[in-house]
């Protein structure tokens, strides 16, 4: 809470290491700390489950011997610190534990299911990026300075509406319309290219609408900045002013907010997979929560968490590439 009364001096920048190196070091440290926090939280999750997770999983009718044997096998009778150590050690060797339901190693279940989720998430990311940025920029340019109020109203209403509809409802709506009514696409499953269309659309539409809105708002705000006036004072063609001067700055701002949006898409896969019976991690996590298959839940939650951390990392790297200040500004 200290106030620096001193203006930032010119950063002559000869001293010390390159800002990129220290950025990489700082960002990596943050990633590792977050990862540790995630792993620890995933571990604690099981410890926090009230009652006996094995008993909860096997049901009240399970014989005491079986429960005890399973507890022993899971190491649940050891003190918390020993279990934590085992857990961390296991993670390093790729051992995520064993599913209580199927008896399969959790890592194997994840290995089976992860590709299906990625097949859904990655195209959805691409769709969001390809749709939202040009739309946001276009509508910002069209409606700047209070022009074309009709276009603004249309854009805002449509994007607000689409953003208000959650993924699973989009999915249900799409199924009802395009599959049930028109029969264009399969209702569920993951066979063939056409099976991808609806799930990817369901996943991407909401975030694309939100991001387009953010891009537009940021673009409008950047267009009001002083350096845009400078660019106009240079009498550059408007196209250059928008693309070269406004866009990168609008994107940095939009990405800072939009990063959270991309991570929410990671979670969005859970719902969409459940609508389309998609055999990915999302279906797995819900089934395992309902079946109280705690080791599996733990493993999948960890996977999703890592996915979120990776998206955040990616966003930060892109930000650093777009805006040189962010390599030193970031705390």
């Amino acid at each position, binding site marked *: 809470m200290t106030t620096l009364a001193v203006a930032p001096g010119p950063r002559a920048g000869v001293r010390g290491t390159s800002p990129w190196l220290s950025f990489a070091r700082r960002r990596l440290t943050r990633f590792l700390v977050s990862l540790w926090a995630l792993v620890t939280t995933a571990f604690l999750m099981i410890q926090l489950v009230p009652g006996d997770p094995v008993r909860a999983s096997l049901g009240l009718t399970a014989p005491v011997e079986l429960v005890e044997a399973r507890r022993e096998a899971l190491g649940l009778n050891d003190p918390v610190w020993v279990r934590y150590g085992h857990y961390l050690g296991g993670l390093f060797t790729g051992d995520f534990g064993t599913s209580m339901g199927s008896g399969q190693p959790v890592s194997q279940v994840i290995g089976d299911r992860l590709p299906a989720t990625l097949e859904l998430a990655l195209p959805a990311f691409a769709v969001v990026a390809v749709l939202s940025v040009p739309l946001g920029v276009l509508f910002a340019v069209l409606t700047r300075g*209070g022009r074309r109020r009709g276009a603004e109203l249309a854009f805002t209403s449509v994007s607000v509406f689409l953003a*208000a509809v959650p993924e699973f409802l989009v999915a249900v709506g799409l199924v009802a319309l395009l599959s049930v009514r028109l029969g264009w696409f399969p209702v569920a499953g993951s066979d063939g290219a056409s099976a991808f269309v609806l799930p990817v659309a369901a996943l991407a539409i909401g975030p694309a609408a939100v991001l387009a809105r953010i891009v537009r708002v940021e673009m409008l705000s950047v267009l009001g900045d002083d350096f845009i006036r400078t660019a106009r004072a240079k009498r550059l063609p408007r196209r250059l002013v928008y693309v070269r001067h406004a866009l990168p700055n609008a994107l940095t701002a939009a990405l800072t907010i939009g990063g959270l949006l991309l991570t929410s898409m990671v979670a969005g896969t859970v719902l969409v997979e459940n609508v389309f019976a998609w055999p990915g991690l999302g279906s797995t996590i819900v089934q395992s929560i309902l079946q109280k298959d705690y080791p599996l839940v733990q493993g999948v939650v960890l996977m999703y968490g890592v996915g979120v951390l990776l998206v955040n990392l990616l966003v930060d790297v892109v930000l650093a590439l777009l805006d040189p200040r962010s390599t030193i500004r970031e705390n």
Partner: protein
Amino acid sequence: MTATTAATAAAVPEKTGRGSPWLAAVRTPVGACSAVLLAAVVLLAVLAPLVWGDRAATVDTNAIGQGPSGAHLLGTDSLGRDIFYRTLVATRLSVGLAVVSTVIGVTAGLVLGTLPSVLPRPAGRLVTAAVNIAVAFPGLLLALFFAVIFGVGTRGATLAIAFALAPGFARLAQTLAAGVVGRDFVSAARIAGVGRFRLLVRHVLPNIGEPLVVNATIGAGAALLAFSGLSFLGIGVQAPDYDWGRLLREGLDGIYVNPAVALAPGVAVVLAGLAFNLVGETVAAVVGVRTRSAKVRDRPVPPVRTAAAGETGDESLLVVENLQVAFPGPAGWTTPVRGVSFTVRVGEAIGVVGESGSGKSLTGLAVSRLIEAPGVVTADRLDFAGTPLLTTSERELRPLLGTSLAMVFQDPMTSFNPTRRIGRQLAEVSEQHQGLSRSRALARAVDRLRAVRIPAAERRARQYPHEFSGGMRQRAMIGMGLMGQPRLIVADEPTTALDVTVQRQLLRLLARTRDAENAAILLISHDITVVAQNCDRVLVMYAGRIVEDLPTADLTSAPRHPYTRALLAATLELDTDRDAPLAVIPGRPPEPSEVPVGCAFAARCPRAADRCLAEDPVPALVGPGHRVACWHPYEDTGRESGREAVASGGAE
């Protein structure tokens, strides 16, 4: 608590003032929509279970899985229960649970967010770090995580969603609170001995309340969607209870038979979610978190104003006649520049001086054609280097203005694009207007940086703006203007943000540049001494008009307008008499939206007479190159003489 009577006295006009924006907000399309939706949702949540609760629960084995019919508006489910009524009845549980979890979540978030400011440092940092990590995870994932801990079911899901909302609100509260804590009034309260807790309650919370309420409303919408999501997944509400998510889950299986089974609860979720979002937006618009621009009605009619622009000879570089700049405001159009006329000759340095709001900067932007819509610029004549700026197309103007009109803006910290290297930002000009290749343009940029005395120009050209100091950036800005062959440099408060020693360097650089390029300068400043030191002629602006246009030599010896004199008298110098009180100008300038009929300065003027209140003075020539817009100007001897003032006032 303290001075309560004073507070209530203030609250009375506040209250009456508050009624109208809310009413006005409800009259907007968004406001009306949100009000209607919210009323419907609340009404249904309260009444639907009472009125239709039994009908929704009635099992009709004769009508299992039917489509829409007269008896069942949207058909029936697998037990023959009426979908329409079930959807309506589910409002209470769906909305109620969302609101409950929002309340818990926001409360938890506020506690987490404000704890760091009350806790000892290390503990506070730990809380902040935890929140920072948690906030990176999407709400649904957090909700699933907590659902594992709290267990499947209504109670577990409510807590899960509440805790999933909490980090976001904690972060929001932290950010908002940090913004308030950094402000001087909190420092002042601390100096006054106000304790931490009172500081939080009295100063911080009230100032972050409105955005928090707005976000809590939108958060309730998010909670509603998340809850339906959990119920849809089977983790939330369990049978025989049902909310919209649960109905949707049950309906999805029958979607082939009757899509309405799945769609009805879906539509309900969307409508209720929209209601929360729209209410949030409306509240935001009213409390001014985000302000919407008012509707633009018709354009203003520029008032006719006859004005002597001074002699315009062959030497004129910039001729401005009756320049007006207007902007649409919430209460109609305002005209911050109202009929400005002047001429800049080749190589001449003109100073424009005035207080904030006098229209001096807008004049600079208008003559550079940098006023964008919704602003409107009109003029009887606006010629630069013989080209009319208002009638020529932008495309045709670009090469001319790009190479012969240079700009220097006030704030060096924000005037360069932070994401591009300085050299490239300069080089752009030559690439665009002089057809230079990338590398040659860059070489010229380095050369120009050298010309404005930037040391190690080659290395500096590869740096980003944040690596430059303020003075250095202003130099680079002048260098940017020198990429072409500037004939006019418009410098808008170029040194206001700089220290005096740097200011002197920059003004010298401007003077050198003017000599080297034979460029004219339009130096806009609030500081009459800066203008007097650096210009041949001075335009004194007040409330959007030039009140006096005079050679600098006359400024100290023979200023004629009372405002010019007052400005000079109020200016502190290093030889001001320390024992005498400073001269002051009573009152303050009129707002651009409420400029009086007569002379705008009349209300503050010691010489104001009846005519000044009734009639706006027109600029009149009172000496060689010296114009004054005043009915009763001072005589040029510097001594006040009523008779002469009236005489010259009537001479126009």
